Every structure is written in C-alpha cells, then in structure tokens.
C-alpha cells in the first residue's frame, strides 16, 4: 500500500454511487466502529485507518459494486485478495 495519502477510497465510493452517509451506514452495519467524521478522513486519505477498519470500509464499497453487477475491485489490506 502506498504511503502517500490518497483519496482513492473516496473515488471508489463515487464510482460505486454511494453517498457518504449511506457508505457510513453500511460500514456501521458491518460492525465498523469509527465515526462518520473519521470515515470521511479515511476516504480522503487525511486519516489512516487500522487494517480492520480499512477492510470493513472497503468491503462496504465492494458489496455495493456487486450490487451494481460488478466484482470486488477495491483491494483489502493484505493485498492480493481480489
């Protein structure tokens, strides 16, 4: 994973047509423990999430991609798990 802060997650969110609120709700449903504000920080690369938080968020986005007929394009923390 690149060390340079990036808003890649937020761009993935946009591609998945998820609002910030809806994404947080889905993340929350899966047991996510970070606040809506922190999640926004993760999305923009302003805050670094734990691996677990990162993966819950990524899975929320990926499940949405599946809903839209796609796959699980966003990589998880361990990498190579697509």
């Amino acid at each position, binding site marked *: 994973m690149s060390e340079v802060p990036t808003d890649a997650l937020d761009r993935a969110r946009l591609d998945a047509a998820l609002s910030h*609120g809806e994404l*947080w*709700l889905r993340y*929350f*449903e*899966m*047991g996510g423990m970070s*606040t*809506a*504000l922190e999640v926004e920080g993760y999305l923009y690369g302003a805050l670094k999430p734990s*691996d*677990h938080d990162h*993966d*819950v968020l990524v*899975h929320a986005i*990926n*499940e949405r991609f*599946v809903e839209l007929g796609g796959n*699980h394009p966003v990589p*998880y923390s361990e990498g190579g*798990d*697509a």
Partner: protein
Amino acid sequence: MRYDWNAFDSEGPPERPLVAWRDLEAHITDGFSVTVDLSEDNAGTDALLCLMGEIDLVNVAVFDRALHSVIDQGNRRLVVDLGHLDFMGIAGLRVLGAAAARLDPLGGTLMLRSASALTRRVLSITGLSEAIAIEGVESGFDHLGPEQPATEVAATATTDVDLLGDVVPVAALAASDDVVDAALRLVVALARATVEGADGVSVSLARQGRLMTVAATDETIAGMDIDQYATGEGPCIDAATEGRWFHIESLEEELRWPSFIPRARSRGINSVLSSPLLARDQPVGALNIYSFTERAFAAQEQQLAGVFATQTSLILAAAGVDASAGLIGRRLQGALRARETIALALGVLMERDGVTADEAFNIIRRSSQSSDRPLSELARDVVSSTRQVGAAPAPGDRGE
C-alpha cells in the same frame, strides 16, 4: 451512598456541617441539588461541591450562590464533582468561569471531578479549560480538534457563534438522538444568551413522523411549542413544514394562526421568530425564539437567528437527520440489527476457530467475496447454523 466523600473522620463528624441546597422548583428537570462537604477529609481540598440533576437557566442561581458562599467562607481549593450531573449547559459554565475568575487572584483553584466527555469538550471549546482544572487531565486541556484560543472567562457569548461549528463533531460521534439532543440543548442556551430580546428558545424536530420539541430553555417555551402541536398551527409548525421563516412582530396585531395566538399571549409571549432547519434542503424542524416584548427582533437579531439556524442544521446534517425521519429511524433499526447479527457471527467463529474478532471478520469477508453473497447474509447463516444439529457447513468451514 452515592457520594464517595460521605465518610466521616474517625474522630467524629466534621466541625463544619454539610450544607445542602435543594431546588425542587426547577422546570423540566426532576430537581437539582448542590451538596457541600467542608470536612477535613478531602486531602488538599477545602470544599467539595457535588452536583446532582440538571443545571438550567432557572436553577443556575442556586449553584452560583453555593459557590460564592463557599468562597466567602474562606475556602480556596474547590472541587466540583459532576459525576451525578445530568446536564451542564452554558449557564452552569458561566457560573464556573466566574468562580474560577474570583479564585485566581486569591491564589485559589477550581477543579472539576468526573466531568463527562461532552462537558470537557465544551470547556475546551469555550477556553474555560485554561482557567478550570479537570481532575485526571494534566494540562487541563482535553480537546479533539485544533487548539482554541482562550476566551475571556466572564465574557458574554456574543462573539462566539462560530464555536457551534465545533459542536458538529460531537454530534457526528453517533447518530443517536441523545447526542443530538445534548448538542441542541447547548444551541438553545447559547441562542438565548446571544440574541438580544430572546426570552426563550426551542428547537422542534420531526421525529417518527411527528413534530416534537427536543430542546427548550425553559418550560414556558416548551409549553408554547406544545400549544402549536395541540392546535396544529403556529409559526414553528409552518417553518418546519414549509421551510420558510415566520416572524410575528406583535402577537397582539397578528391575524394568522387564530387558535395559537391567544394561547401564546396568555403565556406572556409577544413576539416570535421561527427559523426553519434544513437537512439536504428539506425542512426537518424549526428553531424558535420567543420574547415577552413585542417587536423584539430587529434585522440584526433576525440575522443572528439565521446564523444559529444554519449551525443547527449543520449539527443535524452531521448526525444524519434528514427529512424522512421515520425512514431514518427504520433504516437505523435495520442497521443495528444487521450489526448485532454480524457481532454474533464473529463471536461464533471466534469460539469455534479460536481466532480474534478481526480474524473472524476476515473469514466471513473472504467468504462473502468468493460467494458474491452479502456479508450480512453469511453472518445470518453462521448464527442460524449454531441452532441446528448437524448443520450444513458454515462459511469458513474447512472444505468450503
């Protein structure tokens, strides 16, 4: 006994008696009490004040009297225990600030014990944490955001409207009604203190399909709102449903709302300013400012009310409140159920496989990826599989 200081010295009761003030006439709340312990038992402390209940604009005078009496009697090292205080608003903070300002030149100290996270945050935002020590926090600072400049302790709140912007992160901590209500109580207290001519402020919100008052500076004002809900008419209702401003300059001359006006006048109200609260451009409630004086709200006050309304809308937006409050409620309920199911499933896997919660999550998550089935569905399978004897293999089982 609730208080941890209620232990007498082995040689007998303290020389100076405990003094208790009880104010059971506090509106809205069940009661508020300040109990003062002047015994020698409290190491390094001259006086310990324990607060119970809620401090509002009506009973804050009791707290003020207690603090200053204690200082008048020569006590210099004060500890105020907030452990049983349900709510401390701006009024209570100003009393604390004034007491700290009085103690400082006397070489005295004021320390807070068991301050809630919200209280500590508000102290930090208002800059009072520089003047008032918080037990257990080294520098007296406990802030989550950028450092705030210390504000004049005894100053009125007129210039601090922007501090509402810092209340937003508090509301974003959880989409729960309690946190939103706490933030809104701060807003109404601040609005009441800041808007010239305001005698009462309330916030009404649409919840579960009904308009209800979620914060009010006193009972008269809450009663005003109730009058509107009861008659089904009033500026608050119209602002909340139409998303527009409604200003009654003089209730005596007002022709609109013929059922509501007489009731309001009988309570002594003579002008009203209702500002809509919007979330995603939809009206979700109203910020209502009432005055016993007619024509109390000129252009400047209206503008200030607008600023408060905007800040309140931001709080609501951060907390995830939107127009379909009923829908949000159901959505949240569904989300909570799904979250509980996943927690249960993780528990099952942790027990079964001897793994950590994060590892258990990865197991279900990988299963969800490979099967293209939603995680919540798999979690339900895991949980229901525990109820069956000889159940089909659950996600993550060897050989899946």
